[in-house]
């Protein structure tokens, strides 16, 4: 029995007719269309009200009802979105990430926007790289890019200088730098082994040639890359004792407290680090193999149009508004990420230039996790658990890779 059918009939049977009945009046375009939009901002003191006011002024027939949904580590936001979709109570559009695209598609929740963006003026202002990264497996475009970050390497410029080293480019140089900076209770590399830390691990493993396709996690290069990564903690001991459970908060705090010399993160923490360390902190793209392109995570966020929406055109106007020119810049001032528009990127002043440059330099290596329904679970549970076990010595690094291979490819 189809699940949605079950819910509807069971719900109806158990409680009598639902109170909400379908409107009998055909939709009259002369009335105001209300667009419900779900969003989440890191800083709850920021609101999108100015942008909304501007939009409503330019589009008199449309009202935006913005709902701020608690992020709750990501789990809560998506639980509510999925539940709302299942209960046919979903918003018209919402902020979403690529890691959920496959799952949302399986639920038939997304509306393709290819047709709508074809005639959209702002299309050219977003680079092809970014459009392609956001395309779905079936070749259609469902996501409207909104903002992005790229993972790069923060390092203590003063410590490297004192050790007579250049900012690392290859894995070997990275290890040398980490060793040079490790002394006493200071660790060279603040490894992120807790949830979300796959973005630290991927440059060393996917960057070394691992892929998520069948056999891609147990190939020679994949295993070698992972062994190297685990050895940073277990053999070379250039990571802090807390690495296995550290999340983004811990690695940033550790770096600020001058207990680590390098961390892998993105521009979202740049201002915080500069406030604490000033010119002592700088950034370069993540380490790469000696003869390879390397790989780093592209941290995405987009708006999507939901298929259940009754105001698709109005909703599209809103999401395209947010992704164009000055609006996109204003939006990113609220979220602290980088604008997706090329015009916005060149005039960006919210973060110190060296970090914007590092992000731009990292774009050619940037990629995302595979567009598979298994990715969300990988990021949230499968990777942290196996990484921690490997770091603690409970399983071998190779076993860890086998677990990941089994998760994606059975």
């Amino acid at each position, binding site marked *: 029995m189809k699940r949605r059918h079950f819910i509807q009939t069971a719900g109806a049977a158990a409680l009598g007719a639902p109170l909400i009945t379908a409107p009998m009046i055909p939709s009259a375009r002369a009335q105001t269309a209300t667009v419900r939009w779900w969003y989440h901002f890191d800083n709850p003191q920021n609101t999108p009200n100015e942008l909304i006011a501007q939009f409503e002024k330019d589009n008199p027939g449309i009202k935006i009802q913005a709902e701020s949904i608690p992020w709750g580590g990501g789990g809560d936001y998506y639980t509510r979105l999925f539940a709302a979709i299942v209960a046919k109570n979903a918003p018209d559009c919402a902020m979403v990430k690529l890691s959920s695209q496959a799952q949302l598609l399986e639920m038939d929740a997304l509306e393709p926007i290819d047709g709508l963006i074809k005639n959209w003026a702002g299309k050219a202002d977003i680079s092809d790289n970014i459009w392609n990264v956001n395309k779905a497996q079936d070749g259609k475009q469902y996501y409207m890019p909104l903002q992005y970050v790229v993972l790069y390497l923060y390092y203590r410029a003063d410590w490297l200088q004192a050790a007579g080293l250049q900012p690392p480019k290859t894995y070997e140089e990275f290890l040398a730098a980490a060793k040079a900076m490790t002394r006493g209770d200071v660790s060279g590399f603040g490894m992120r082994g807790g949830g979300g830390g796959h973005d630290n691990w991927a440059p060393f493993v996917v960057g070394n040639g691992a892929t998520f396709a069948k056999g891609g996690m147990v190939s020679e290069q994949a295993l070698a890359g992972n062994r190297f990564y685990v050895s940073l903690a277990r053999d070379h001991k250039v990571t802090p004792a807390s690495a296995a*459970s550290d999340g983004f908060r811990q690695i940033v705090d550790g770096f600020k407290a001058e207990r680590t010399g390098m961390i892998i993160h993105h521009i979202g923490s740049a201002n915080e680090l500069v406030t604490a360390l000033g010119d002592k902190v700088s950034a370069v793209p993540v380490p790469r193999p000696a003869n390879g392109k390397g790989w780093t995570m592209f941290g995405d966020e987009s708006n999507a149009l939901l298929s259940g929406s009754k105001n698709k055109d109005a909703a599209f106007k809103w999401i395209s508004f947010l992704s164009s020119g000055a609006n996109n810049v204003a939006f990113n001032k609220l979220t602290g990420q980088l604008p997706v528009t090329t015009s916005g990127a060149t005039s960006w002043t919210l973060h110190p230039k060296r970090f914007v440059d590092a992000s731009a330099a990292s774009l050619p290596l940037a990629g995302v996790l595979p567009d598979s329904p298994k990715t969300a679970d990988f990021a949230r549970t499968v990777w942290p658990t196996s990484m921690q076990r490997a770091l603690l010595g409970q399983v071998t690094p190779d076993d860890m890779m086998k677990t990941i291979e089994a998760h994606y490819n059975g």
Partner: protein
Amino acid sequence: MTAASDTAPAPRLVLTPYLFLLPAMLVTLAVVLWPVAETVWMSLHNFILFKPRNVPFIGLGNFWRLLHDEVFWLSLGHSLVWISLVVGLQFLLGLVTALLLNQTFWWRSLARSLVIIPWALPSVIIGLTWTWMYDFNVGVLNDVLIRFGLIDKPVAWLAQPDSAFISIVVALIWQGFPFFAVTILAGLQTISAELYEAADMDGATRFQRLRFITLPAIADVIATALLLRTIWVANSLDVILVMTGGGPGYSTYTLPLYAFLKAYSGMEFGYGSALAIMLTLLLLLVVFIYVRRAARELDQ
């Protein structure tokens, strides 16, 4: 089975207990019955949330899978240790606190109110605050211990399997002991002063008073509080989720957490539901034993 000392008078009142029960039943069953039924339904199917079109019936397939799942057994083991430690230690601390608070002294009202505070905080705050206190780099616990010379290097409390488990247990004891303190205190208050006076006249020591008057009088309250708390702790997962998410590795996985992660991270609602039902059945066993034993006493 009615005893001779049954206080309810003649049959004309036979409806009364049911009438008294009706509001409670309406409020609880009406809201919970259908979702629970749906969960049972989900556990018998291979139901993955993002594959709503393909939901085959697999009977007891999920339950079979769980019996062969090493993480299930690991989580179950952890749950058992977890419940014993947390409920046991919360109870002991709460009992001592209640006995102390039951006495008369000038700052009694203040003490009683302050002790409530851990219980008054939402789990997410408790989880975050304690995680921060345990922090390797900037945590206050490491700092204090180093200053007092008890350790010479910071300890990564939440990154080692054993210390992570104990660390969370401590946070939970902190959170839950006020419940026992308050509940037992209320029970202590219902003990008639005359009983103590009679004991005093017989020359009983304080310890004898405790053992022969106090504890027996509140035995029922204690037993109920323990039962309720066991059920609550067995099902709780918010603090663990916030503090370690089950890690490092599987070392702080408990059964409800495992069910939660399977359902909300892996989107495997069928299997997650089966895990939850397993937990419920196990708790049911515990409750059955308690109710049968208690019922024998209650029927006297």
